[in-house]
């Protein structure tokens, strides 16, 4: 893992005009214990996130893609310390998140917010929209109720909702509108970082674009930094500056969005890309598709060697015994695969 760390550090040092690092994650692990029997004996662990390192630059968007169960959401939650990390460090704007006490954590909370996946579950059904959006203001600022109402109306306008609807309840809104309410809540305290945990996965396709565009506008307007978790490669390409591809709790490939989409190095990235349909029937009919066999292995007993070796169409013997080391093949483009030739 040392090698991995130095590589990432070098990467940060090499690039000349690299923007400031806002979040720096090193060797992050999150294992959920598996217990059995009446005595809750620990019999194993689900390695949801198993040694992940990446940086998020201020003002940029890091896309995190991978299929279900690859640990994307766990990374997001661990980053905000909604889950305690098992190992590793998360440095947010120079301070180590893992070492913060409950009180210290509460002070950092306003600077990092989250937008959730399920617009139906992420808003308290018994609170009005104004109290939902106003909650962070109540918790962290001492505002009069008039100031708060003004701020709530401003925020509602900012996310494209009618400020007159402030006294309605969440169920009176559609999915897209609720997601906007969730976004308004997330930006109410002017955070630096927003973790977007599949914010568009539960929305209609027609609404997805609206919400993503709104998020981009807000990013420009407020200088936000996003960690954008999704399984939608097309959407990631649209919104992200850099993309990390995850598989079974590890990052397989991390690169700038253009270099990842134009020149995917990892077999898994290529497979993911070929699974996305192309909006041209002629191309779609003839293009070569890589179809992966089988299912993603259980994170409680990941395969030895490369975790992708059980499904990789190009796997060789070495892949099944030796864990591939993280390597940077070109500036800003890292991959964990034995088969990618070094430059």
């Amino acid at each position, binding site marked *: 893992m040392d090698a991995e760390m130095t590589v990432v550090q070098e990467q940060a040092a090499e690039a000349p005009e690299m923007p400031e690092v806002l979040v720096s994650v090193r060797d992050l692990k999150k294992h959920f214990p598996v217990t059995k029997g009446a005595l809750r004996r620990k019999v194993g662990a689900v390695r949801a996130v198993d040694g992940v390192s990446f940086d998020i630059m201020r003002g940029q968007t890091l896309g995190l893609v991978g299929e279900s169960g690859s640990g994307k959401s766990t990374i997001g*939650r661990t980053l*905000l310390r*909604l889950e305690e990390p098992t190992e590793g460090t998360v440095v947010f704007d120079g301070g180590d998140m893992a070492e913060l006490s409950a009180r210290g*954590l*509460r002070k950092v*909370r*306003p600077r*990092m*917010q*989250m937008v*959730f*996946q*399920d617009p139906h*579950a*992420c*808003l*308290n*059904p*018994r*609170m009005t929209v104004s109290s939902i959006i106003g*909650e*962070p203001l109540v*918790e*962290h600022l001492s505002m009069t109720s008039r100031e708060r109402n003004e701020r709530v109306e401003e925020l509602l306008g900012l996310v494209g909702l009618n400020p*007159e609807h402030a*006294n309605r*309840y969440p*169920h*009176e*809104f*559609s999915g897209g509108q609720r997601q906007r309410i*969730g976004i308004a*809540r997330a930006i109410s305290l002017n955070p630096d970082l927003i973790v977007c945990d599949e914010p568009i996965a539960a929305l*209609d396709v027609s609404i997805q674009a609206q919400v993503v565009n709104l998020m981009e506008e807000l990013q420009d307007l407020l200088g936000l930094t996003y960690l954008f978790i999704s399984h939608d490669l097309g959407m990631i390409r649209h919104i992200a500056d850099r993309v990390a591809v995850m598989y079974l709790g590890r990052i397989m490939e991390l690169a700038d969005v253009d270099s990842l989409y134009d020149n995917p190095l990892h077999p898994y990235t290529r497979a993911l890309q070929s699974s996305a349909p192309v909006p041209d029937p002629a191309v779609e009919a003839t293009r070569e598709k890589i179809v992966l066999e089988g299912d993603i292995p259980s994170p409680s007993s990941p395969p030895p060697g490369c975790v992708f070796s059980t499904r990789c169409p190009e796997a060789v013997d070495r892949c099944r015994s030796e864990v591939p080391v993280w390597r940077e093949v070109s500036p800003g483009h890292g991959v964990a695969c034995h088969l990618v030739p070094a430059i």
Partner: protein
Amino acid sequence: MTEPKVHASREVVAATASGAGPKHRSLRGDVWRQFRRHKGALVGLCAFMFVTVASFVGPYLMPYDAVEIDIKMRNLSPTWSHPLGTDNLGRDMVARSMVGGRISLLVAITAMALSVFLGTTIGVLAGFFKRLDGVLMRLTDLFLALPVLPLLLVIIMLFRDSLRATFGPEQGIFMLIVFIIGITSWMQTARVVRGEVLTIKQQEFVAAAHSIGTRRRNVIFRHILPNCLSPVMVAAALGMAVAIITESALSFLGLGFPSDFPTWGRLLYDGKDFINLTPMRVVGPGVLISLTVISVNFIGDGLRDALDPKLRSR
């Protein structure tokens, strides 16, 4: 694709409806509007109000006293002057039922409040704080395993006299009965509430509250508690019924209120020996108990619906 349409039309309707009105609707107004729509709850509320007013105001309007003995008039069948007849000592049953209602209702409401408070507190603590879960749930099991009647006997034997000496015979026994009913009936509520809290705790809006940095106290009071209101409402309605019936059983065992101090349960048990002679002696208090329990259940039902914003908008 039909869902957005429906929403849109509803919104248009809502917009036109609220366009003229004031911008801020009050929560209390909303709740009352929805409550009125529940017919059963409205009828229940009327019945409950009627019973309550009759119990607390009625005795002042009656020409008879509840404890006045008139041996010549004993065991009368219902007549216009004695609609529920008289008992074996010639006391008017309507007057006795009214006075009895005071104690029964007071005991029921206070005992229910105590039981729901205990049950909800323990349920929320056990559900929210994983560390307390084991201890509190084993405590709940322990209370469930206690045989209630022997426990009551022991408690009453131990504390009755000292409480009577301190607070007077009526208040002393009132506090004792409320306390006993309260601490022997909170366990079901605690279990149901714990289960509900465990579910709600996993929902995303609670994670959202944590990520905002909401204090744990506020997470509980703002997010968890309001969302487990429906089982609490049901528990409260059932708890009142249980309290009335337990109080009756206690009075029957001679452990409740003194016999010259009527409660519905007491009247029922005193009257049961005369059921062939003067059946109205039993029917009257029995119907009152049932009426109260049913109306409270309906009120609870209506209140639960009215407090749920999802049902409110329909």
